[in-house]
């Protein structure tokens, strides 16, 4: 009787662990298949010349989309990084725990707002009401709203991890909170803050829905104009050119996805390296 029960429990454990391993394998297999599909098709269709030609006709190149993506990311990070980093400093260093809780919570709520709703908001408000037209600025601000919560949250949590003793030491030297933050506390948190900004860039790179109705689409290289000029971006090519009935259009879509994936992969590796380095330092 006892023996049977023990056996049953053992078998149950075996089944449990097998299912768990299978589940992990399924996740890894799906990821591998996706990465393989994009890499294989991407390598087959990607040409270096695509980096220096603009999209035209049924295919062409990616230059306009790459530069446009870059411009949108730079614009949005110029707005989102100061807002997020300074906001994170406030939440961690200045705010009372109640206010910090409220801001933290609402920031997380903002990160839960569907990106298409942010795009719709951008269209109604910036493109139409403020009359900016489809433009880099409208797209950049839509991306800002998406990036901001990540930067603020990672900044805040990196600062929170700095030991209280360091703050007390700084205050004890007669520093104001401002001086303490800018001279002492930011140093150990810098790695964390940088990963937050980088991850926000990776997220911004991959967004489509908020840009469809704010940035528009252009087959020309972006000008520096902030408003009234449409701007191209990589995800648009993936989305629209895979729908076309030509092989060369599909090749362009695969190439765009390939470039995107490579850049995002690179950012993730850099983030890992930073995390590893700061972990070693501690």
């Amino acid at each position, binding site marked *: 009787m006892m023996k049977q029960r023990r056996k049953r429990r053992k078998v149950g*454990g075996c089944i449990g662990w097998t299912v768990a391993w299978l589940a992990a394998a399924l*996740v890894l297999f799906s990821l591998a298949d996706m990465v393989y599909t994009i890499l294989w098709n991407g390598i087959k269709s990607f040409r270096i010349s695509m980096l220096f030609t603009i999209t035209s006709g049924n295919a062409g190149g990616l230059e306009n989309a790459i530069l446009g993506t870059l411009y949108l990311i730079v614009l949005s990070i110029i707005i989102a990084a100061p807002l*997020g980093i300074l*906001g994170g400093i406030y939440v961690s260093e200045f705010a009372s725990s109640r206010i910090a809780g409220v801001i933290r919570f*609402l920031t997380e709520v903002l990160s839960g707002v569907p990106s*298409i709703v942010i795009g719709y908001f951008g269209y109604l408000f910036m493109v139409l009401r403020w009359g900016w037209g489809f433009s880099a600025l409208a797209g950049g601000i839509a991306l800002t709203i998406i990036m901001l919560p990540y930067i603020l949250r990672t900044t805040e949590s990196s600062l929170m991890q700095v030991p209280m003793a360091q703050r007390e030491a700084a205050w004890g030297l*007669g520093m104001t909170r401002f*001086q303490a933050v800018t001279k002492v506390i930011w140093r150990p948190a810098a790695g964390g803050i940088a990963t937050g900004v980088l991850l926000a860039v990776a997220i911004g790179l991959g967004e489509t829905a908020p840009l469809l109705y704010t940035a528009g689409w252009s087959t020309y290289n972006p000008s520096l104009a902030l408003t009234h000029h449409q701007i191209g971006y990589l995800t648009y090519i993936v*989305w629209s050119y895979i729908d076309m009935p030509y092989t060369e259009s599909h090749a362009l879509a695969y190439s765009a*996805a390939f470039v995107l994936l490579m850049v995002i992969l690179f950012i993730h590796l850099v983030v890992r390296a930073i995390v590893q380095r700061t972990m070693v330092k501690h």
Partner: protein
Amino acid sequence: MRKVSSASKTADKVFRVATGLCASSPVLFLVAIGIVVFIESVPSIKFMGWHFLTGTQWNLGDMYGNLEVKNGVSAPAGATYGALPYIVGTLASSVIALLIAVPVAIFTAIILAYRVRGPVKTVLSILVELLAGIPSVVFGLWGVIVLAPWVAQFFGPLLTHLGVVIPFFRGPVGTGMGLLSSGLILALMIVPIITATTRDLLEQVPILYREGGIGLGMTNWEVVRKICLPYVKDGLIGAVALGWGRAMGETMAVLMVSGSAINYLPHSIFSPISTMAAVIADQLDSALTDATHLAVHALAELALVLMLLTLITNFLARWLVHRGGQRVRSGVRA
């Protein structure tokens, strides 16, 4: 002791105000989005009332015909906005995603937390985080060229055998674009969110509890099932709700594989569907050809409903995650 100069005191104050302003910016954005979406949806709320949530016809009306006035709002004759098919599409696809993703993610998290160590663990964790970082159009691309054909030719016909027992699995399978593919792709997208959060929660289970279980003669698996999982239950439900919110709000991947159904409630798991998010992306240009702008307002109301749904699940999720684990932070987008 060094004396604090008045200049640095002022600098401190200025800095404090500046950071405070920055910290309030997410709140301002949130409020602005809420207000704009609500104001834009008022005419549609007046026009449709509760029928917006129960109607199944999404009809811009006869745009080349005459206008008519109903409930004080003018619209092309015959216009009616019933969002039920999109609400059902959103809920159905996200629930299918959850049914698949939750067990897979929990099992994967158990493996990541308890079964692998050292470099293997690091590599697997990176891979899961990478999955979370893949853009949704890339998921959509994969859905169009790999998943939908696979569903149409292999997985779908296989599932139709279940149709004998469960009518919802009955064919025809069609092109593979529809509810099943949408659910599968969403599942894949939310697995990393649930996995990462669950893994962090599981790692926080005090070692004493687990050792206690072993000491009582439990097998490894029993420790996981009877001690660890109950311990993280609240946080787990929170992680699931978080994934659910993401699945409901996802746009591009679903738009690419959903089959863009209109006026149609799914009859089977192979039916084409549309979700609220996909309809907003897909129909805004149609809506703008409505001279009365009612269609734009109707889409705003759809955005409002979607926002409320995702916010409710998010509120729930944050509350449960915070209560469950002490402010668990996952390294992925959540």
